[in-house]
């Protein structure tokens, strides 16, 4: 588990003091709202539809049970008793008051957390694989490199006023669980002839102009990570569009120049940076690795939970919501935050405390947030899975729906967000209720449903196997459906099927589309596979009756 050293503590404490000072100057009128805005944004404080929203960074999604309890306390004391897990593994609070923000940041700093650079046109929190360090398909643990990036990008003086926000994701596994192609920089840690390095993608992003990242370096040696990334950021800082915020992301620059030409600019800049900055040393890389020592695993036999054979319900959950672990006798367990009556990703203070207790009891006191807005207990013994499952059922985290239709990604939508055009939570709830039949849902299999309440695409609808976009037409909310996207290794952008549906018809249209899938799917095909085989027409025909 990552622990702050004295330097981290000093820096985060300085930030708390600084923000307290800034809030005081805002309240006294020394700072106008225009001057204060960029300062609060770099501390994750947005002004939303009804109130401020505070986004708290969770580097690479790792949380200790102590931190989870502090998050619960903040939810109770300064919010309305809940928080919201985001698609970038952070947590946000929807109801804090400006005057309370310094106290919240202090509370966070006391448990080694912060809201640094969780918004604003700067380098945001680096995200990673929620199964980092434990996944069976992992080649190299990405977290030491995520930590190198975290330190380098935190308060980077040159790159704090970029043309637009900048997001980095990193994975070290075969299966991409971090959506690296949907990020400004996406990294896959690989090993080549015994050397660790990165496949380096740039220019991915969703929003109004969805583009998947392009590979600009097939193998960047690990020691070059910061020098090369500095070169990418400098090229972007110098040449990114600053006239039009909708054309300001790096993806637009990469597309305008073409990835090859952009790569050349980076190479020229990189050659200069090589004269100015040292490589990451072995010692530094070793230090970054030391932050992520493995927990005190027991030596266990490679035996699956014994209750699997005689409890069907448990077996269903085991197959759907747990994943293999690289250590014999352990599994990684997903806690589903998706069920009827709960906005996707929302978590109450009581649930947070329950999660902290479960983490202490079953998983070395650690939990993780995921890009899909769920939680993970990464190190659970096979022999304790049955007991954990019973506890998860008690707290309603045991919906066996991971990566199925009802495990959808969803933005906060019109209920909270100042940018949204349409509500998303109500539609999510309609869908969750309509498909709240475990057997039916599991039979539909692996379906990634992603929904956004506006074209800014925080719900990643372009890369959903099924994507839903809320729009506003003459004061009424409507929903467009797209099919065929993917954020995984087989990354693709979805295609619209036709005119928008009314709010009450979205779940019914989905049912018609999925009925067609059941009719025409071939053995072993996921929805996405069938779509790629037959194309849009059969689904379009079914959707509009």
């Amino acid at each position: 588990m990552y622990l702050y050293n004295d330097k981290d503590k000093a820096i985060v404490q300085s930030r708390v003091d600084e923000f307290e000072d800034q809030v005081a100057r805002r309240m006294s009128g020394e700072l106008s709202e225009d001057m204060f805005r960029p300062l609060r944004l770099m501390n994750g404080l947005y002004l939303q539809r009804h109130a401020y929203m505070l986004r708290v960074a969770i580097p690479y999604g790792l949380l200790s049970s102590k931190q989870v309890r502090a998050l619960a306390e903040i939810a109770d004391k300064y919010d309305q008793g809940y928080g919201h897990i985001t698609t970038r593994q952070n947590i946000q609070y929807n109801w804090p008051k400006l005057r309370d923000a310094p106290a919240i940041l202090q509370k966070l700093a006391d448990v080694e957390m912060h809201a640094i650079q969780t918004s604003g046109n700067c380098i945001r929190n680096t995200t990673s694989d929620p199964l980092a360090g434990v996944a069976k398909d992992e080649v190299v643990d990405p977290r030491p490199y995520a930590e190198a990036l975290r330190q380098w990008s935190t308060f980077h003086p040159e790159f704090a006023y970029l043309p637009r926000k900048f997001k980095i994701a990193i994975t070290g596994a075969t299966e991409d669980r971090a959506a690296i192609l949907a990020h400004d920089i996406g990294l896959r840690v690989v090993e080549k002839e015994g050397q660790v390095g990165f496949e380096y993608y740039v220019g991915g992003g969703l929003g109004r102009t969805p583009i998947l990242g392009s590979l600009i370096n097939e193998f960047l040696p690990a020691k070059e990570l910061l020098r090369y990334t500095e070169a990418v950021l400098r090229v972007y800082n110098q040449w990114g569009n600053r006239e039009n915020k909708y054309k300001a992301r790096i993806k637009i620059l990469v597309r305008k120049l073409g990835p090859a030409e952009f790569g050349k600019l980076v190479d020229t800049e990189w050659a200069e940076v090589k004269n100015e900055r040292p490589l990451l040393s072995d010692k530094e890389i070793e230090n970054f690795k030391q932050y992520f020592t493995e927990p005190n695993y027991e030596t266990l036999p490679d035996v699956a939970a014994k209750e699997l054979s005689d409890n069907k319900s448990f077996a269903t959950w085991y197959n759907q919501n747990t994943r293999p672990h690289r250590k014999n006798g352990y599994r990684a367990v997903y806690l589903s935050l998706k069920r009827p009556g709960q906005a996707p990703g929302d978590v109450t203070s009581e649930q947070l405390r329950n999660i902290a207790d479960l983490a202490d009891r079953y998983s070395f006191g650690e939990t993780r947030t995921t890009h899909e807005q769920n939680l993970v207990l990464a190190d659970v013994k096979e022999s304790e899975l049955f007991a954990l499952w019973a506890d998860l059922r008690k707290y309603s985290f045991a919906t066996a729906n991971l990566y199925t239709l009802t495990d959808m990604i969803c933005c906060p939508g019109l209920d909270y967000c100042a940018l949204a055009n349409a509500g998303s939570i109500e539609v999510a709830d309609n869908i969750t209720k309509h498909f709240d039949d475990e057997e039916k849902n599991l039979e539909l299999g692996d379906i990634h449903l992603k929904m956004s309440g506006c074209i800014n695409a925080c719900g990643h609808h372009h890369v959903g196997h099924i994507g839903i976009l809320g729009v506003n037409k003459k004061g009424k909310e409507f929903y467009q459906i797209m099919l065929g996207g993917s954020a995984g290794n087989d990354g693709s952008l979805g295609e619209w099927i036709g005119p928008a549906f009314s709010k009450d018809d979205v779940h019914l249209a989905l049912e018609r589309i999925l009925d067609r899938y059941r009719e025409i799917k071939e053995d072993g095909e996921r929805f996405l596979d069938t779509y790629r085989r037959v194309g849009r027409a059969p689904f379009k025909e079914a959707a509009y009756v």
Partner: protein
Amino acid sequence: MSSGTTTVLVRNDGAFGVNANSVATSSLSDFESQEDSILLPGETPYSVELAERLSKKNFIAISFSKFADGRGYSWAKNLRDRFGFQGTLRATGDILVDQLLYYSRVGFDELELSEGQKVESALRALGRYKEFYQPAAGETSQEST
């Protein structure tokens, strides 16, 4: 820059001072004049050739037309680290007190406050952080911990 402007000076040794001097600067358009000082708009497109010519001056003021435009930071960093500029580098224009530390870290040694900005707030902002994750311009590396 009119005379009488309060200028918060950041010195390389980390000391701060306040004076009311203002240095005359010529604009880029009369670059070849005898003036030893130059005013460079931060949004000027970067070029190696221009950076080389600039680095021969003794005083460069980089002006920020909008505080949110970060291009001037890269100019400063490159002039210092890549072109060995040893003269005085001043940040002027739309700059916020809370940005001063970043300006000083990328190589500016003079920061010109605009009217209404308080010197005490500026000095507080400059002195608050003692630890950094990155080297400043001119430093080769920051020992990582």
